[in-house]
């Protein structure tokens, strides 16, 4: 019996104008935008590759270890085509050194050609689904029950020995099958476009993530179909059902997400808190400076000259750079000696002792600074974003967006992975320095005798997190969507059972 019902509904749905329109529009929008997005991705990838080359070249030009400021870049995420998230918004190039650990707020943009283009909204595949899928689902659902009731066919069906639950299930299944057609067809075309691009290579993990995105899309679609069905079950006239459905759509898709973010003010960052944190960071470095001076005062060479009176060609530097708005405080010191004269030779061991003393301490200070900064910046910048995300979850759009971002790896945690990888890489580099005994070596500050060894330095490469981790991050929102589905279905069942035909 269920099968007969499904077949009937399916035929009813497939032959309608709305079905043809839905398929056509989805295909049109997805194909046009995917082509644009692929081109944009290719441009960003090219910028990334150029950056890698330049970074490599710049590293080779450095003749001392102390000059080893290592630039690192984040490759663009191919899945940003599905949900761009923060992939383009946050910058993708940063650097590390022994005395510096970067955070999310110390990066540069790679290969920007025109910042003014941010004025136009970028449309990714998930955004199209968010708007169009929900609309189509409601258009399919609003007359599912109200329409049959109006025409009197519902009464006819119920005279047979079918339970009301079966009718609902049949309607749900057949409509979902119909709605899946435009969704899967457009995704298929998008995938074909992705495959034809030479520059995009998708791994097995990527396919799993895309599978996750598709599953989230289906759950999202189903939520809106069930909302439409609930409205249809609760109203007697299709006209009213349609009007209500449209208002629900407009409110939950267009109005609520924008209004809630605008209306909730970001909590005022306490200036005093920022200042005290900044002072804390300053203290770390001032303490280092005191230790440094103490060392210089107590070593066998008189005076506090960090270059130990070496007469040389080349340059030495020492600088502080601060930016209180992002709690940035950086102390850099190093030297680049090209040639030493004979008289300076006896001073070299002293300089080596000095750096052997100083550098490990600045490595340590940089790490402590990072800890302080990260905690402070998280409360200032990340907390509001998390609160926003929670508020957005009151609309299915918010859940869907968060889930797909997590799958694609373009959410905040995905980007944090990059900075975490940068921090780990810095540790690797420092271990490498220890292996080479670089801090106490002549090559730390001088390029005259032996060459520095950049050949064996491990390279930085950013590996995206495992698909499993993406799944874990997407799970809360996905579960919310599924629970919402279940709840809606139960409510519809209750409403429909009690309704008079």
């Amino acid at each position, binding site marked *: 019996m269920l099968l007969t019902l499904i077949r009937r509904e399916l035929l009813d749905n497939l032959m309608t104008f709305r079905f043809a329109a839905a398929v056509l529009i989805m295909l049109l929008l997805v194909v046009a935008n995917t082509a644009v997005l692929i081109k944009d991705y290719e441009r960003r990838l090219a910028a990334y590759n150029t950056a890698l080359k330049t970074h490599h070249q710049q590293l080779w030009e450095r003749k001392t270890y102390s000059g080893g400021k290592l630039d690192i870049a984040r490759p663009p995420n191919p899945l940003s085509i599905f949900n761009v998230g923060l992939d383009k918004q946050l910058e993708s190039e940063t650097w590390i050194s022994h005395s510096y650990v970067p955070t999310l707020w110390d990066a540069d943009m790679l290969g*920007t050609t025109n910042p003014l283009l941010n004025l136009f909204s970028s449309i990714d595949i998930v955004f199209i689904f968010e708007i*169009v899928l929900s609309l189509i689902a409601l258009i399919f659902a609003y007359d599912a029950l109200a329409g049959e009731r109006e025409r009197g066919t519902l009464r006819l069906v119920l005279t047979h020995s079918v339970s009301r639950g079966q009718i609902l299930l049949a309607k749900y299944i057949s409509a979902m099958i119909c709605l899946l057609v435009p969704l899967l067809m457009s995704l298929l075309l998008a995938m074909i476009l992705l495959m034809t691009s030479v520059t995009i290579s998708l791994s097995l993990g990527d396919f799993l993530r895309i599978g996750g995105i598709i599953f989230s899309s289906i759950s999202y679609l189903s939520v809106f179909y069930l909302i439409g069905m609930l409205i249809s079950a609760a109203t007697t006239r299709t006209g009213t059902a349609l009007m209500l459905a449209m208002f629900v759509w407009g409110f939950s898709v267009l109005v609520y997400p924008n209004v809630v973010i605008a209306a909730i003010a970001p909590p005022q960052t306490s200036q005093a808190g920022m200042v005290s944190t900044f002072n804390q960071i300053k203290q770390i470095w001032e303490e280092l400076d005191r230790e440094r001076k103490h060392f210089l005062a107590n070593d066998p060479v008189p005076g506090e000259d960090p270059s130990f009176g070496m007469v040389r060609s080349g340059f030495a530097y020492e600088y502080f750079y601060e930016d209180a708005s992002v709690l940035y405080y950086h102390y850099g010191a190093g030297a680049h000696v090209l040639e030493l004269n004979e008289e300076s030779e006896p001073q070299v061991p002293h300089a080596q002792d000095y750096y052997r003393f100083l550098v490990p301490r600045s490595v340590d200070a940089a790490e402590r600074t990072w800890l302080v900064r990260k905690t402070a910046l998280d409360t200032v910048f990340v907390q509001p974003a998390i609160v926003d995300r929670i508020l957005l979850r009151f609309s299915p759009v918010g859940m869907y967006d968060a889930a797909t971002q997590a799958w694609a790896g373009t959410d905040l945690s995905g980007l944090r992975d990059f900075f975490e990888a940068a921090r780990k890489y810095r540790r690797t580099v420092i271990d490498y320095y220890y292996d080479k005994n670089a801090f106490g070596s002549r090559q730390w500050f001088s390029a005259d005798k032996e060459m520095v060894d950049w050949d064996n330095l491990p390279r930085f490469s950013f590996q995206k997190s495992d698909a499993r981790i993406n799944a874990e991050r997407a799970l809360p929102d996905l579960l919310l969507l599924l629970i919402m589905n279940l709840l809606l279905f139960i409510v519809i069942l209750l409403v429909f059972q009690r309704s008079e035909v």
Partner: protein
Amino acid sequence: MIWHIAKRELYDNLNNLRFVLAIMLLIGLMITNAIVYLREHPTRVQQYRSSATESLEVLKARTDLYDIALNGPGDLYKQPASLRFCADGGESFLSEFVDGGYWMWGYGDGFRDFWLLNYPTSNPNLLNIRPDVTKVDWVFIFGYVLSLLALLFTFDSVSGERERGTLRLMLANSIPRHTVLFGKFLGALISLCIPTVIAILINLLVISTSSAVHLNNEAWKRLGVIIAVALVYIFLFLALGLLVSARVRRSSVSLVILLLTWVIFVVFVPGTVASITSGLSSPISSDELRKRQNQLHNEILEAYIDRTGGDETPERTLGRSEYIMKQMEQQERLRREHLDQQITQVQQARAVTRVSPAAILQHSLEAFAGTGFARHLQFLENVQRYAREYREFVENTDRSDPESLHLIGVPEGMSKKPVSPEAIPKFEDTLSLGKDFNTAAIDLLLLTLFVIVLLSAAYLAFVRVEV
């Protein structure tokens, strides 16, 4: 008779669920808009004032002409628009200042280069990791919500009556068809205008009762224009609704067509078309620009190398002065050209987005509110005009001193007389309504054209309709 029909439509609508929902939605949105504006605008103005005064103080403290000519006027700030609640214009993506005290350094040529105008290239919205959403401004409320409501108010106005059979009844009387159509148009318009006007009044009431913001006379004039443009925009969607409703037999089909058209033209066309068009041209990246700057610097240095180095002779001073001025001019031109490329790219994309009425509304509302891209161009123009004035001032002051060698660019070639701080031109960012009319003229024309075409199409469709 028109009034009779309009009145009937109006009563129909007023008793309807959609009227209640529309009024609640619009009022809610407008109140949010006002609250957000009152929260953000005062801090914006304060920030502008403090940073502009800061720049001015630095400028006033200078008395030496060489110092003035060397360092430039400092950062030049864009005045925040008091009508930002009407159109946000993506201001958070546009830089709020132009660096008018930038000097090239690190070339190691031994010369102290003069200031030049430098346009910030990075995106000022960088620290923002909050979810990316559309701002709830009047552009959003009119462009998205009100247009959708207009469709919801008209989709069944003809097809619904035909379905119920009342259309036949009405046309049996001796009423010409166009009277019926315009009656329906008016009825829908009035029933849509009631919630809109109430919402706008509440919005303006909240804003004007606050002491933190003061709207001047011109702002009210601009508000009038903005509301008029929004009205024309609503005409367009009402006409579209009537057209489809007259052409299509069933109202559910009519609504499906209208909604899908709306989604495509209002939500997707602006973004999609803009990305496609902007993909056609690609300005050089900032890294490439830096490379070209270095290259240009070296070329000029090469050309002047014989005439600048060595001892202090009048010839060398002349050479040095020429070198520095040339460096400044050419470097600034390079930056300007780069900026122009970027602007052209955006302008092309904006021109094509005019196929969407929502984009037209956005452009014209931005123009009258004094925000967004067109306003940014005005600001850049103001800055450039001021930079010229500033340099002319240096030249004229120098020329008026008979003891000076009139060689601008080197300290020994310039006037040593102290300059009074009052005489230095001050930067003031201005807005004018007349200019904004010019920028929005084509948009307004297009919008009117759309309305006329759709209205006549609706008329034709209704005249030919079989009852």
